């Protein structure tokens, strides 16, 4: 049986019915990872105790809503007893003594953490190439990038190495790889999912989110991780989410706003696919409106200022004293810290330095303060639009997945590829990416954005859309 061909929801049914055990399925996926991942490089660490834990779940009657299902977790989400590196050499040996809140929730529902997935170091990147453990490859075309920063989680789903995965999205890090690998990924409303245990890149922008082969799988994982957490001061209660209501969602008459300014600037193959997507939206009975959103051009600069400012402060704690790779204590503290911080990759250094620049006296007003005010404008603008329309629709990525290494000399190209995903992070609203189809054999994703805490509504429309566009098959490697 090729278990990876089944949906996660179906697998859970099989687990509950007893036609398969958690031990079998965990061993199956671990085995597959060991075979395939030498090519793909989607995992950094495998959970050696996964099968053991699966046995325990079996013994207890496969309880909980995950009933022993294996799940892949991005390596910036803290897992007790399992090495958590953020794809950084500075955390090469870091084994956290506590679980992230989302991990506790998954365990409580009988989920098995199968391993930790590759990513851009500290979630800084859009291609998966900035990993201290080597780049992840795109299962749809092994010469191309899978998108980032949740590159490993997306690649693992697309290649059938895990039924479900967790990613994190600061400026598109779930949606970009979902789009590039042809899977589904949700960036939840800011505050909907606890960030406790998510290793911070840019606190005010990021959320942990679910990734899956299809909309309902993704919604199912989301239904397990969302919810207020007293350990996260920025978390908020969400309305209850129902998979049935998502399945029965009525798309007729809902209003979708297409941001024409943004669409006009994407690459031709993407534009063509997006037009097909617009047709699907009409076909499912939704109303398509072409609108403009003023000031959306400022989203990217505002994003980079805020993200890097926060990052420069967040990443100060990596000094080799309390955890991670050790520092040379016989040196003066400044020299000792500099020595250990050499282990950061280039992109991390660039963003820390940019953040130090945008926060330093003399530039703070010009950059940080302006960026936050621009952010508020973008949020207000988008929320106003979402009062009038039910959804905003835009492509997820403005380009097709590029060849690995191809853009090393063109950093601007890579930075600009975040332009369509950052607005949702700045505004704190939820956004989902799902495949429209293939262009030249490469996946192209569409992005739907809804108002805060309207995840159910978002999944509902996505579900109807998916029925038109079709799921992309898991790649056999």
């Amino acid at each position, binding site marked *: 049986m090729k278990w990876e061909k089944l949906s996660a929801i179906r697998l859970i049914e099989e687990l509950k019915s007893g036609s398969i055990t958690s031990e079998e399925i965990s061993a199956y996926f671990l085995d597959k990872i060991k075979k395939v991942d030498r090519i793909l490089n989607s995992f950094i660490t495998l959970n050696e105790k996964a099968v053991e834990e699966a046995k325990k779940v079996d013994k207890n009657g496969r309880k909980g809503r995950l009933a022993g299902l294996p799940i892949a977790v991005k390596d910036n989400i803290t897992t007790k007893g399992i090495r958590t590196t953020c794809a950084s050499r500075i955390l090469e040996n870091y084994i*956290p003594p506590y679980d992230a809140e989302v991990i506790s929730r998954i365990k409580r529902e009988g989920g098995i953490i199968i391993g930790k997935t590759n990513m851009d170091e500290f979630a800084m990147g859009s291609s998966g190439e900035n990993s201290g453990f080597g780049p992840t490859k795109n299962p749809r075309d092994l010469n191309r990038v899978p998108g980032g920063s949740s590159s490993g989680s997306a690649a693992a789903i697309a290649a059938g190495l895990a039924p479900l995965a967790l990613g994190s999205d600061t400026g598109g890090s779930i949606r970009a790889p979902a789009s590039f690998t042809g899977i589904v990924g949700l960036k939840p409303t800011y505050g909907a999912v606890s960030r406790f245990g998510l*290793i*911070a890149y840019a606190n005010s922008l990021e959320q942990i989110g679910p990734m899956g082969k299809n909309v309902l799988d993704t919604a199912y994982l989301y239904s397990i991780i969302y919810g207020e957490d007293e350990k996260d001061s*920025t978390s908020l209660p969400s309305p209850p989410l129902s998979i049935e209501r998502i399945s029965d969602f009525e798309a007729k008459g809902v209003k979708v706003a297409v941001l024409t300014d943004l669409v006009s600037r994407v690459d031709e193959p993407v534009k063509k696919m997006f037009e097909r997507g617009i047709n699907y939206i009409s076909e499912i009975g939704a109303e398509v409106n072409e609108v403009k959103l003023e000031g959306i051009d400022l989203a990217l600069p505002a994003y980079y200022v805020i993200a890097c400012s926060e990052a420069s402060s967040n990443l100060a704690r990596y000094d080799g004293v*309390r955890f991670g790779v050790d520092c040379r204590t016989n040196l003066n503290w400044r020299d000792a810290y500099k020595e250990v911080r050499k282990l950061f990759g280039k992109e991390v250094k660039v963003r820390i330095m940019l953040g130090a620049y945008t*926060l330093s006296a003399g530039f703070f007003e010009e950059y940080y303060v302006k960026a936050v005010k621009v952010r508020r404008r973008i949020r207000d603008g988008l929320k106003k639009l979402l009062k009038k329309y039910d959804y905003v629709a835009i492509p997820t990525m403005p380009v097709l997945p590029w060849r690995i290494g191809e853009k090393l000399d063109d950093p601007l190209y890579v930075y600009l590829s975040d332009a369509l995903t950052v607005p949702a992070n700045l505004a704190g609203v939820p956004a989902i990416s799902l495949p429209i189809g293939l262009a030249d054999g490469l996946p192209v994703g569409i992005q739907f954005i809804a108002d805060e805490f309207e995840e159910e509504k978002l999944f509902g429309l996505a579900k109807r859309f998916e029925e038109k566009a079709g799921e992309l098959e898991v790649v056999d490697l």
Partner: protein
Amino acid sequence: MSHVKIGLEIHVQLVSLKTKLFCSCSADYRGKPPNTNVCPICMGLPGTLPVLNEKAIEEAIKVAKALSANISNISYFFRKNYFYPDLAKNFQITQYDKAGGIPFATGGYLKLSNGRKVRIRRIQLEEDPGRIYYEAGIQEARYSLIDYNRHGIALIEIVTEPDIREPREAREFLEKLSGILEELGVPVGEYEGAIRCDANISLMEGARVEVKNITGFSAVEKALSYEITRQRNLIKRGIKVERETRHWDERRRITTSLRKKEMEEDYRYFPEPDLPPLTIGKDVLERIEGIIKPIEEVVRDYVKKYGIEEVVAERIARDRRLRALFNRSVKDRPDLARHLASLLANEVPFLMKRREIELPSDTKGLLIVAEAKRDGLDRDEILRLLDNWLHGREVIYRKVAALREADLEGIVKKVIERNPKVVKDVKKNPKALNYLMGLALKEVKGVVDKKKLFDLLRKSLGL
């Protein structure tokens, strides 16, 4: 001592809290083995988030109120970014008054015994860093040893305006502050290192020098005196005082240069993204007032414990400043409780209504007035003494031996003989009796038991 300007930055540990500011680790760290009161949050592990201690806000409100500061209905937490081995995250969560920031409270003051008001610039909440130890001296150490038990302990920082003019005023300020804190249930005096102070000092509008590492109130006085002499000598020799940070060397009793402050260190302050703004609503403020002490309970306590009349007790209990003064003074002299209560409930408000004056926090003068009242000094005299106390002047009262019975008889006899007309009226007109009593009191030099004198007068008049 003219042209001396001293400002203080005081760090107060909220020792009344059971847990740290942003995590649930026990705040009771003194005497514990190193790194026993720690958790992933205060060790700054990746992925951890701060959650604010509710009680810390209550305590900060109490302190701000006691210093008459304005509590901000919204304030923000900021990150102060700098690297140092005692900081687990290499930034400190604090508050800030620039860059759009608003600290917990602003304004307020504390009055010194000489009447000078030392204004408070701001009061803010922040976390304490860990502690660094060295096996040998700091100079010889080949590494540092870090204990994070103190890391994350709740601090409030109180920053004053440069309103202090003399080293001993700085000391008095700290002693008073410490007294107020104790009164509020934050007994900083009982814990080593729970109140720490940095001082800024400038002479003749010259450069500002910051003196750090001063522990103990008398050390503040000594360090500042030393610094004034040092700067005076420099000025005398025509050398410019440089803006710098100096370190108080308790052993050698001198200040030594720590680093030149040519440039303000770039702390890259920005709003802490993990903590939404702190809003303080009216409901919270009112609740805190309740927590400080339910008034009915205070009144009941006063009546029971000191035998004070209920009206009087209530008048004191309702006014936070009167109550604080009463509590502090009665602690030293419970025997004077009724007189203190009467002064605070009647005479003090009377005088304060007549003139725009503020209550001093000093209780020494008040106790002297209470003694005089016990001895039966007449009201005008009492008011005069109280007025001195209210204005920060010295209260002098020399207790004169009470007049003997024979002396009183003499006075009464004299008054009756000299006012035959009034004496005749006495039976018809009750005012006449008061008039005679007034005359008799005028004859008294010293202290007299008024009741005894009055009884004697009535007896002699056959009433």
